[in-house]
């Protein structure tokens, strides 16, 4: 984090006491496992509430949020440290631009990571979508696919599917829990398809789902904690999921040159060049030479020759 000023995580004190307690507890757990840095990458389509989630977790308005614009023109990293533990959250622009997955945005994200976090790891990916979208479509799949292409399939070991706008009233026929499980199931299915995780592999990639409600009108419990319609306070819940994932034994995604620049096509097949050259000589140049010889032999000579 060279050059990046790491601020003390003061905003943690604004959380309700119960949340604070829980968070400090979780951070202590991480520290006890010798994890003193946690890097979280937040990605998703535009306008699903990535920046708001980041703001909610940090507890202050670190990223500007605007309701209508493509809010985040470029990736932003927020770093906070508390008693020797550093939390990095990278907020990114929406991956969808003009109805298509924007490779350019992905490139900016990657080069941003390359600049700030080279040789570091991404410990957790928050894949953000809305709870209140009723169906998943091809575009979601493409977004997942683009993330997979850029960071590798392994990133889904470290991913949490985050559903924002959790405080909603489900359609009449369904209970909230039913709706949530249906929605999360369809999203996970989409992720599995997009990331090309086969059914057999699905057990390996147990992607937890976390609910988020960033709205100020979010219901609160007696401890002033923001709670979900189910009654659980969501911030400690989310951080707990993050902690669990960070400690799940799978290594984080190391940011290296290869990841940033994508697979280096220049190196592909280099070993085979001598073989290719030999084949070209034997099966292209030689036959052409032979056909030239045939041409010479077959050349219609003028009558006088």
């Amino acid at each position, binding site marked *: 984090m060279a050059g990046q000023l790491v601020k003390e995580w003061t905003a943690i004190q604004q959380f309700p006491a119960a949340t604070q307690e829980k968070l400090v507890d979780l951070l202590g757990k991480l520290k006890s496992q010798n994890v003193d840095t946690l890097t979280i990458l937040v990605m998703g389509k535009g306008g699903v509430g990535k920046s708001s989630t980041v703001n909610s977790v940090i507890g202050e308005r670190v990223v500007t949020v605007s309701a209508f614009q493509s809010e985040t023109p470029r990736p932003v990293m927020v770093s906070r440290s508390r008693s020797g533990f550093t939390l990095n959250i990278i907020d990114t622009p929406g991956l969808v631009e003009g109805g298509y997955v924007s*490779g350019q945005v992905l490139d900016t994200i990657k*080069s941003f990571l390359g600049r700030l976090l080279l040789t570091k790891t991404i410990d957790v990916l928050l894949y953000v979508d809305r709870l209140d979208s009723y169906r998943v479509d091809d575009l979601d799949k493409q977004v997942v696919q683009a993330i997979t292409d850029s960071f590798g399939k392994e990133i889904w070991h470290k991913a949490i599917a985050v559903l924002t706008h959790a405080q909603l009233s489900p359609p009449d026929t369904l209970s909230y829990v039913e709706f949530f499980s249906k929605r999360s199931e369809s999203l996970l299915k989409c992720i599995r398809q997009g990331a090309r995780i086969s059914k057999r592999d699905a057990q390996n990639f147990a992607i937890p789902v976390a609910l988020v409600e960033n709205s100020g009108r979010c219901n609160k419990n007696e401890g002033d904690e923001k709670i979900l319609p189910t009654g659980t306070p969501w911030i400690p819940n989310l951080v707990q999921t993050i902690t669990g994932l960070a400690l799940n034994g799978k290594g984080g995604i190391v940011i290296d040159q290869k990841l940033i620049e994508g697979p280096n096509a220049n*190196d592909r097949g*280099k070993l085979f060049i001598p073989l290719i*050259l030999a084949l070209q000589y034997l099966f*292209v140049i030689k036959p*052409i*030479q032979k056909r030239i010889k045939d041409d010479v032999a077959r050349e219609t000579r003028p009558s006088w020759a």
Partner: protein
Amino acid sequence: MSSSAAPAHLLPLTSSTASRRRNSSATASVSRLHSPNSIVQPNLPSVAVSASLQNPKPSKSPPFLLNYLISPKSLGPCAASCILFHLAKPVFSGSGTIFNLGGGGGGGGGGGAGGGGGGGGGSDGGQGGGFWSRIFSPAAIAKDDEPQQEWDTHGLPANIVVQLNKLSGFKKYKVSEILFLDRRRGSTVGTEDSFFEMVSLRPGGIYNKAQLQKELETLATCGMFEKVDLETKTNPDGTISITIPFLESTWQSADRFRCINVGLMPQSKPIEMDPDMTEKERLEYYRSQEKDYRRRIERSRPCLLPIAVQREILQMLRQQGKVSARLLQRIRDRVQQWYHENGYACAQVVNFGNLNTKEVVCEVVEGDITQLVIQFQDKLGNTCEGNTQFPVIKRELPKQLRQGQVFNIEAGKQALRNINSLALFSNIEVNPRPDEKNEGGIIVEVKLKELEQKSAEVSTEWSIVPGRGGRPTLASIQPGGTVSFEHRNIKGLNRSLLGSVTTSNFLNPQDDLAFKLEYVHPYLDGVYNPRNRTFRASCFNSRKLSPVFTGGPGIEEVPPIWVDRAGVKANITENFTRQSKFTYGLVMEEITTRDESSHIAANGQRVLPSGGVSADGPPTTLSGTGVDRMAFLQANITRDNTKFLNGAIVGERNVFQLDQGLGIGSKFPFFNRHQLTVTRFLQLKQVEEGAGKPPPPVLVLHGHYGGCVGDLPSYDAFTLGGPYSVRGYNMGELGAARNILELAAELRIPIRNTHVYVFAEHGNDLGSSKDVKGNPTEVYRRVGHGSSYGVGAKLGLVRAEYAVDQNSGTGAVFFRFGERF
């Protein structure tokens, strides 16, 4: 000697190349010689025939000239017979076994139908001369005008027959009519008869007594007639009519035909027959002559006349029954026709022998080459010492022009073209000339004018560049141009060193300075070795706009990237045929990429949605610094058997190009970049080949695959789109990729002198755009593939076409130079 006929038989194979050096690709132009006189001269001393024979040659009369213009077919024969005129020694044979067509007969024969036609036109009531008289009448009138006052009336009563020797030797008689009277049949022969070629007299002509007597002598000695006379009849208007009563020579019918080449053999010498010989002596004489003749046949060489033609002649003989003089004339014409049609311009029937023996022996002088002379001329046309070594020229001459071969005009033309392609000479002549020392032999003379060995040239041009606001301003008129020098034909072995420097602004040459220095070393395997390998070493630079950094449709402006290459190159080219070749060599170069303002650019720029420009586009070089150095091997093999068929290209062309990186240079570039192009020009209809015949419709199928394994800097990426890739798009508009495939089909339909065509093309990046570092295809919003179709017409060198690009569905009209394939 008529100069009108001279250029034809002297093979005016001349090629003047005034500006060859500038346009080295120009094909050899074979043009008629401008000054025939210079070539006529060498022939004159070789006249071995008595002047009496040469004088009455019909070629002097205007009808002959006209005929020469009207029917080009007779050009060859007439010209050749002029050669014969010098070569052949007439045989005044009384024996009847040797029939001589040389001398006057041959010379007259050259006139061909022209002579006869002229006669018909001149005679007032000429039978069957209607056609000719219509054509010739202007000439006849013109001819009448001039000599009007120059003839004398006969001064005798009209309508009396006067013996030739009764005519006055001082008067010039005007001949109004000439008639041949066949005594055997008792009727006159038509003007179209071959006998009319025998006389040089023409109706309307003015002759004195001596000329008429000479004419009669010629007729009497030519062997065509057993008996011939010349009678004159006075006309009331002071002119005379000539009647030639004759008895045609005939011999026993023959059922065999033989054609022999008697070139380089001494002509059979007529032995004066002593009139006082006894019967026995005479028999002895005949026998010895027959023996001599048999020996002559044995010594002669077989001739080139194919069996088919011989059979045809045999047919003629069989149909005829008795062998008559006129039949022999027809045979002679047929044989000569074959030779001349096949390019043996010097071939000539000189004799018919062995008559009266059931066999007709046709003696032909085919025109054997006895010597090949290469001469150099200075600017004034004087023979001089040349710088070029003879083997260099000799290896360009076709085998058929070597000593011992029969001279063929096509081989001469080929030699001319080959020598011309050396680009060493400003003027080339290939002339056959009769060999004075060897009768019937031909000396082929190759006369060459060498170009200056060293030359330097400065050419300047002022280009008006757009100044502020796009208007050309005075201050922005820059002097530009080229300075070049050339040292040609070093050591006389066609080695050359040439250099040039070009800039568009001499005041500020560092802006864009293109230079080239090249050394060419042909005949790498020795000038006597038939293997044709040329070594080339060059030092070069170039500046090109990279099509990789081009926007797709809808992208307004992509800041351009210039790719400067400078380096050295050494390669060896082996030519297999004129078009097929194999080149291999080493290239070492430094590539610098620059932006608009000539600053080194390590990355392409891209326009952000906000309108700003960011310089973090795809990297331009492998090293990432904007400057790459690399060494690689380059090989290119081209197989091209295309040819022009009545102006349309048919055949096949395959090109394989390979750049093999050696791991030497910035970032140790190691790569294998390869391209294969296959183009087929399929002829859709069989057509007859020949000048003026329509070309066939042609279907062109074209495929181009390009690929690269290993390090691929953006400037070496394959781009899609453009007039030579996928028409209807701009250069690089479709993308830049690691592997590409282009397919095209074009149907060409000939119309008048040109053709129209329809085409469809497709280019595809095979999904390999992302394998180019920085993915310039995507960054500049290009699709990566695209198709187009359209129609076009070829207007001279320009192609005008309407192409529809299928990505946007819009069409546009394009004008392009040159060929797509």
